[in-house]
């Protein structure tokens, strides 16, 4: 019954999305004040409620492990802890797509309820575009991946969830990424709405900005969480593999970062109109490409869990329809939009444009590198593309971008001279040069980590320079957001550079009682014990690790064996200090009875994720600042109207 209820809610929601789309487009054609226009906003709101009901039903099915439902039987198990039963609801293809449409319809409902700044006609066009995008995804769900499908005969027991996914990381990682993807779909709808009604104005940018910011914050969090999860769960000691699935989340992030900055320029300076629209389309295309790459399994990935080539083609068709349509519209309308205000090369806009172009170039490089194996496969040549390509080639564009990023926020809008900020420039240049010389000559670091360290240190200091000579209490929240986010990039950069420059690795086979060394650590294997969990058994190594002769800490890496489904995983053990992390993995038993240990000492590695969190925090601060400012403006506007009504009444 619950499954049928969810299924019905999904159909009704799809019908409302169709209504929202048709009514929206008709209202745009009919012009102001048509009857049908009144249907648009309510249908978006009701659609959001229905999609939420459908998703709640799916959660319910997973919570009670209803094994007559195919999806539950294939992905859950009655003995699994409740939190993993629930997170299992979106740890598979159908459930994750349902989550996607739920979040998408919720954001549609929210703009329908709350967004009052834009001309009504533009809003209707926006909601119509949103309805069209949603309808595509509803069709995808209902026709090719119905999560509520019943089994003819209920299964006696579920097949279980992939053990790699039985982790709290999973409970948060996909939903945050999806919220990012979906936020970009809202930005896309705004861009289409603005193009249709030729209303590419600063108001449009202000309305779109919170969505881009929100999407960007969630994408950042999703990438940070995914990276840390892969780091400790896969047991390879790496935080980024340039794997297609990782690139699928990085590409929308790059596009969203560019979009975020150009939206700011449009909102506050009324410049870069066409460019912003273009980026809005590109950013959502990248989310669709990402979904396609992840869901189709067309590329080999270590993270591909819910893969089905048949469905890939459906997403490809949707991608072609949405993006092709948007690009066509763009080609038809772009020439009718003025470029807006002018600016010189040495101005804040100039710096933002430069970095926008650099981000787009990096995006192109990642995209080409990700798709290259597909291209060669057509000629029956199998290749994989990894760090030797991505690291140096993206650095070519990342290095100038980081330099401009340190300088740009110091420049004035519209027109400025570099001489005006000479002391700040000198400080930045000196910091970078001194770090280059110090790390290059004294410690002999390789070129890429060296550049990373030097630019990270320079940018870390430079990111606070916009505060010079200002009253700290009166700096707007959004400016703090920018400073924190830029500082976060510097912190993450230092973390990455230091991880690749100073990591120490040790691979050894040791007997119980023996010690081995990695960097400043002495690690002793005390004993190896069998242990058992709710749905697994494991071999657990008990290690005592002492940093520089200090108090030893206990580490317990495990090699786990799950039985539903049968699979083995490596559970790494971490010991975190302020200046880095010790990472330990236990391997196989050698024929002569010793145990394989793999140990890494990674100085400052945690800065990567702290930096990422700072970036997200900066985005959140900016978002809160903008929303508060918007509320304040609305309150003032309301008060002016009241005041005017009063004076009129008195008159």
């Amino acid at each position, binding site marked *: 019954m619950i499954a049928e209820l969810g299924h019905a809610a999904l159909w009704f929601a799809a019908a409302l999305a169709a209504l929202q789309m048709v009514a929206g487009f008709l209202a745009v054609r009919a012009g102001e004040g048509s009857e049908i226009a009144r249907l648009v906003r309510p249908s978006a709101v009701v659609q959001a409620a229905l999609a939420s009901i459908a998703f709640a039903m799916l959660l319910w099915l997973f919570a009670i492990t209803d094994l007559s439902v195919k999806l539950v039987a294939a992905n859950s198990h009655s003995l699994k802890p409740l939190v993993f039963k629930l997170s299992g609801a979106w740890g598979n293809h159908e459930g994750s797509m349902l989550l996607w449409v739920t979040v998408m319809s919720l954001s549609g409902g929210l703009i329908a309820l709350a967004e009052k700044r834009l001309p009504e006609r533009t809003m209707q066009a926006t909601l119509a575009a949103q309805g069209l995008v949603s309808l595509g995804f509803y069709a995808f769900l209902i026709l090719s991946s119905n999560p509520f499908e019943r089994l003819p005969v209920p299964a006696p027991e579920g097949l279980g969830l*992939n053990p790699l996914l039985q982790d709290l990381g999973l409970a948060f990682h996909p939903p945050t990424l999806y919220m990012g993807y979906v936020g970009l779909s809202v930005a896309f709808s705004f861009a289409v709405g603005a193009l249709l009604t030729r209303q590419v104005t600063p108001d449009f940018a202000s309305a779109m900005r919170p969505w881009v910011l929100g999407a960007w914050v969630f994408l950042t969090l999703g990438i940070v969480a995914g990276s840390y999860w892969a780091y400790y769960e896969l*047991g*390879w000691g790496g935080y980024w593999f340039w794997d297609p699935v990782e690139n699928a989340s990085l590409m929308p992030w790059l596009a969203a970062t560019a979009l975020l900055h150009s939206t700011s320029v449009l909102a506050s300076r009324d410049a*870069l109109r*066409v*460019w912003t629209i273009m980026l809005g389309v590109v950013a959502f295309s990248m989310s669709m490409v990402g979904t396609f790459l992840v869901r189709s399994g067309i590329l*080999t990935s270590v993270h591909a869990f819910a893969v089905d080539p048949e469905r890939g083609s459906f997403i490809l068709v949707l991608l072609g329809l949405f993006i092709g349509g948007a690009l066509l519209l763009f080609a038809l309308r772009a020439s009718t939009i*003025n*470029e*807006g205000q*002018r*600016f*010189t*090369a*040495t101005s804040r806009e100039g710096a933002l*444009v430069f970095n926008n*172009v*650099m981000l*787009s*170039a*990096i995006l*192109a*490089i990642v995209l*080409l*590198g990700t798709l*290259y*194996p597909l291209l*060669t496969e057509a000629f029956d*040549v*199998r*290749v*994989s*593309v*990894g760090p*030797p*390509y991505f690291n140096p*080639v993206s650095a*070519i*564009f990342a290095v100038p971008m980081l330099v401009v990023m340190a300088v740009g926020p110091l420049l004035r809008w*519209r*027109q400025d001279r570099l001489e005006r900020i000479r002391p700040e420039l000198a400080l930045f240049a000196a910091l970078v040069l001194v770090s280059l010389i110090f790390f290059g000559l004294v410690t002999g670091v390789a070129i890429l980590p060296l550049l990373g360290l030097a630019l990270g240190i320079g940018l870390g200091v430079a990111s606070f320079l916009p505060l010079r000579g200002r009253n700290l209490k009166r700096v707007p929240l959004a400016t703090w957001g920018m400073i924190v986010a830029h500082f976060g990039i510097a912190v993450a950069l230092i973390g990455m550079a230091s991880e690749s420059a100073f990591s120490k690795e040790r*691979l*050894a*086979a*040791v007997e119980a009682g023996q010690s081995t060394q990695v960097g400043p650590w002495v690690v002793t294997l005390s004993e190896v014990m069998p242990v058992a969990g709710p749905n697994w058994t494991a071999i657990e190594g008990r290690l005592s690790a002492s940093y520089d002769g200090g108090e030893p800490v206990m580490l317990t890496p495990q*090699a786990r064996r799950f039985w539903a*489904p*049968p*699979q*083995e*995983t*490596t559970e790494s053990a971490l010991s975190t200090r302020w200046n880095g992390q010790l990472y330990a993995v236990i*391997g*196989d038993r*050698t*024929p*002569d009875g*010793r145990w*394989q240990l*793999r140990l890494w000492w990674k100085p400052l590695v945690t800065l990567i994720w702290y930096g990422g969190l700072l970036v997200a925090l900066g985005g959140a601060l900016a978002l809160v600042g903008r929303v508060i400012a918007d509320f304040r403006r609305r309150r003032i506007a309301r008060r002016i109207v009241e005041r005017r009504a009063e004076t009129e009444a008195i008159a």
Partner: protein
Amino acid sequence: MSALKPKHQRLILVVLALVALIGAGLLAAYALRNQANYFYLPEQMQADPPAVGQAVRLGGMVEQGSLTTDNDGVTLRFAVTGNDGSRIPVRFSGIAPDLFVEGSGVVAEGRLAPDGTFVADNLLAKHDENYVPKELEGMSQMQAAKMAEETTVGIE
């Protein structure tokens, strides 16, 4: 520099973006030709070996009875065989994946050493019942067909 006319400004923006993107594309194409990590089957590696030190991947079956562990306990030596009896010795230092056993499929990432041994940095094996490295999908079928052929020899 004075502010440009809007029309010129847009033109400059478009040109700048195009130059950067085309530059990025050319650079990517150039780098991909050199840096892509090519996949070899043992017979391909024997017939036309890659340059010593170039990062490549080797995929095949772990030969029965070839797997040994060195005295240090962490260096594995085994041979990867192809479909026509070709055979490449492999050395790997590290923790082998969970389902890495003799007779199973494996993809080794690494480079060819001057002595003809393939030195692997990483091994990708089948990591659960359902997952097979993409390169081995076709291969295991071939292998299965071959095995079926061998086991049915003499049965009419």
